[in-house]
């Protein structure tokens, strides 16, 4: 297992290098002008100076190498310096990846935005799982019962209706008409008292539920299908022939087998917590990572887009590895040596 993990990490390094180059090349090849959003009155010489100040006069390979060096060397060293007080080298004059539009550090922006995303999207993912697994189990066990029919209907709706639509509907009903929840997520809210906590819960509820519905719909379909695949297998009959109760048959024998593909799916879906809720965050004005990416794209902030996209790629590679490891733990038939 250790060998497998080490081998996979070693393979991940060239993979990520290639990915980072592809992202960089695509962004560079795109007809993109960071001064394009400036007023028409700004003369071309000034625009040219701005481009030079952003380093755009350098050839592509130099800029790519700069980014690589900043991302893999300077930024980690800076994190060590700021987070743990460990200083290696000259931490004062180290160049960092800077956002073109705000001139602030890209990594600092990302660190600022991450908690909102984790709270809102992460919680919705967690709720989605907690709702989906029981629904999937009951739907499969009582296949074609009214519970299954109703569940199938709702999961079909939840799965096929996009979150920007359910989000809008939720806002119209619960914010505009009923005025139960605020329409806009207030990031400046500090939870220091009970009433502020209630406010925080209120403003989180709609985005979390809209996303949870979507996640739960998808997962419960998988869970149901996976349970159904196992329910008629011979080992289930063997378990019954031993006199085990239906609960034990279902929750020990069937569930252990059915969870293998589902857990893998859950692990593979975790990177989408960071990246996937782009549209939902935009609708509810949650200023998380998804919204940051949209702003970056709109303002042609290439370093920010490049760094965010690359971080999503890193997460996907990492969670692929984690999914494989979990798969091996859950299923004794899988061995990695």
């Amino acid at each position, binding site marked *: 297992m250790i060998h497998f993990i080490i081998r996979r990490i070693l393979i991940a390094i060239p993979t990520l290098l290639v990915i980072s180059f592809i992202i960089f090349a695509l962004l560079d090849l795109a007809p993109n002008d960071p001064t394009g959003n400036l007023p028409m009155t700004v003369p071309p010489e000034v625009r040219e100076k701005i481009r030079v100040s952003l380093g755009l006069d350098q050839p592509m390979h130099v800029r790519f190498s700069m980014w690589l060096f900043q991302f893999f060397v300077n930024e980690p060293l800076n994190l060590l310096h700021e987070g743990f007080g460990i200083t290696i080298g000259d931490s004062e004059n180290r160049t960092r990846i800077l956002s073109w539009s705000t001139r602030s550090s890209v990594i600092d922006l990302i660190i600022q935005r991450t908690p909102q995303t984790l709270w809102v999207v992460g919680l919705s993912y967690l709720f989605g799982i907690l709702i989906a697994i029981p629904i999937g189990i009951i739907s499969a066990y009582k296949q074609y019962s009214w519970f299954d029919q109703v569940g199938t209907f709702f999961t079909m709706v939840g799965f096929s209706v996009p979150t920007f639509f359910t989000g809008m509907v939720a806002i119209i009903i619960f914010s505009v008409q009923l005025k139960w929840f605020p329409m806009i997520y207030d990031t400046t809210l500090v939870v220091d008292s009970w009433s502020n906590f209630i406010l925080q819960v209120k403003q989180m509820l709609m985005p979390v539920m809209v996303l949870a519905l979507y996640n739960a719909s998808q997962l419960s379909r998988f869970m149901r299908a996976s349970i159904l695949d196992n329910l*008629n*297998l*011979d*080992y289930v*009959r*063997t*378990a*019954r*022939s*031993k*006199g*085990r*109760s*239906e609960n034990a048959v279902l929750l*020990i*024998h069937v569930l*252990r*087998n059915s969870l*293998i593909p589902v857990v893998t799916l859950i692990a593979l879906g975790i990177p989408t917590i960071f990246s996937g809720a782009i549209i939902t965050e935009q609708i509810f004005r949650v200023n998380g990572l998804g919204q940051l990416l949209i702003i970056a794209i709109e303002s042609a902030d290439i370093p920010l887009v490049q760094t965010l996209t690359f971080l999503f790629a890193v997460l996907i590679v990492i969670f692929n590895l984690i999914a494989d490891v979990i798969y091996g733990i*859950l*299923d*004794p*038939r899988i061995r990695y040596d």
Partner: protein
Amino acid sequence: MLNNNSILKVNKITTRFLTQDGLVHAVNGVSFNLKKGELLGVVGESGSGKSVTVLSLLKLLPMPPAEIVSGQAEFEEQDLIQLDVNQLRKIRGGKIGFIFQDPMTSLNPVLTIGYQIAEPMRQHMGLSYNQAHKRSKELLELVGIPNARNCLSSYPHQFSGGMRQRVMIAIALACNPKVLIADEPTTALDVTIQAQLLDIIKRLRKELGMAIIWITHDLAVVAGMADRVAVMYGGFIVEEAPVEELFSNPKHPYTLGLLKTIPNLEGKRAEKLESIPGQPPNLLVKPLSCPFGPRCNYSFERCNRENPTLIDRGKNHKVACWLNADSGERL
């Protein structure tokens, strides 16, 4: 009704399956009597209702689509058919043990062998984890698995088919059942492993003194193991007799045909094996005439009109046929 040396008395079990194509008449009023310590062989081709009959007894069939329409099964002064699933659970794996056909799929792939053997003991005998673990080891040794201690923490995929079937036997015997139901336990195994398992069952039967229902389509296995044989065809028992009587003096045309399909070591080399012409009966049709009639060389007008019932022709030899094979008399 229940005489003293009888342990399981099955009376007119009828099981049907409701499928999209219609009602499948899988078992049509099967009755038999299992005596204490006896090994009853049940033979018949695929789809003759052997497995469905025994699975019906403990409701181990998926219901729906299966439905037990009528019948009784007396076991320890209870009618198994009347019991609900919770009451049956106390009997399943405890007083009646099961061995299934395919050892490759009958064990749970993600649970250890030790856990799976211990399950019935913890369920029925109330053993603690450690007690069950100890007995599991003994059971594995009993069924001839060397190095039992290590095997308990292994998973099924680490075992060969023969080893897995030994594990299945250990599971079935874990609670010292009064009745062991073996549903084609050696069909999926190769011949040498088959022979080893038959020896184990023979030995354990003597040691533990349980009654066994042995379902197979292998007549040779039945000849070597059984005390009594029931031949099934189209969801009916068509002939039932003590093993020697059946093999030396078969009375039903189907049994006769079956015995002719066995290759004979003393026969001439060029001799062709006989087969029974025709197709097995369509179970979607409600059986109102003799199910074997259309394939039978001896059938006459009554066979197509009425279904024969099982009649005792002496020496505990029961046959369901309108033709008296001894006298040639048409009933």
